[in-house]
């Protein structure tokens, strides 16, 4: 029986964000935008969806009088990512 792929993660931009965050302690919004080549508006929406799912933590603060948004993956996010990769591997084993 195949595990169903997590719909929150099985979306190009959201998966890109979580994949970036999995390897770092935390990253600024501008860093994520630069690496994913996404527009600020689209990225904001997807970051909010990941936050609502409890997969990432978003901290907003001021740094040198400029607003700064920092994102960090949560333990729930790590768990979901691991489950997603396992499910992918299962599909690929059968497909390959």
């Amino acid at each position: 029986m195949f595990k169903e792929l997590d719909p929150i993660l099985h979306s190009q931009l959201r998966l890109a964000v979580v994949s970036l965050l999995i390897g770092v302690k935390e990253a600024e919004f501008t860093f994520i935008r630069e690496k994913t080549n996404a527009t600020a508006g689209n990225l904001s929406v997807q970051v909010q969806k990941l936050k609502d799912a409890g997969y990432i933590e978003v901290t907003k603060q001021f740094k040198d009088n400029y607003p700064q948004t920092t994102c960090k993956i949560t333990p729930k996010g790590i768990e979901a990512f691991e489950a997603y990769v396992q499910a992918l591997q299962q599909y690929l084993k059968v497909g390959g």
Partner: protein
Amino acid sequence: MADEKKMTEQESLDLITNMIQKAKSSYHETGIGSLLWGSVVSIASFLTYFQRTYEFSVGFDIWLIVLAAIIPQVIISVREKKSNQVKKYEDDALNAVWLVFGISIFALNFYQKTIPEVTAGIIEQEGWQMTKHYLDGSKPDEILKPFAPSLYSLFIMLYAFPTLVTGIVKKFKPMLYGAIIAYGLFIWSCFTRSEYDWLLGGAAAIICWFIPGVILRRKYLAQQQKHV
């Protein structure tokens, strides 16, 4: 990057690999800290060697430039912290290693300055003295002050320690190889006259920090150019 584009399983896996790789290779140190310490420690080491060998003085303790380098290092650290867009898991651990290294250098320096004086006091209390006596009688006996022999070898060993940790953790080969060579220089310094330790220490600073600093700086500037 579009959001709702349907992906195949293989595309998902490729995207994950690509993003993890991007996060891994995205951040380069500016290299200024390595260049700074590589410069000041090698200059101080080489000048100490030349002062001792050719018996001249620059008029002040050249190692004060190492102490003075702490000020620009603090400014560099604050600026780098502000400009970093991403924080990696190993950053805190590596910062702690370098902090402990700095404390250890000062502790060893304290040892170097304190032990001879304390030993001299104990010797005086006990009523004896250290004497240099030539077995063939070619020169008259000389009274010696207590000293820590070939202590700079230990500094060379200390230079290698945080460099090796950083090289391993960051998978940064110039520091990894630099540290291994520095351990070799430490062993070499144990078999040489103490004045040559300064030369070997200067070489260790160049290999451990200055050369990796140049490489880091180039990588950093190349990355900055990509963003222009």
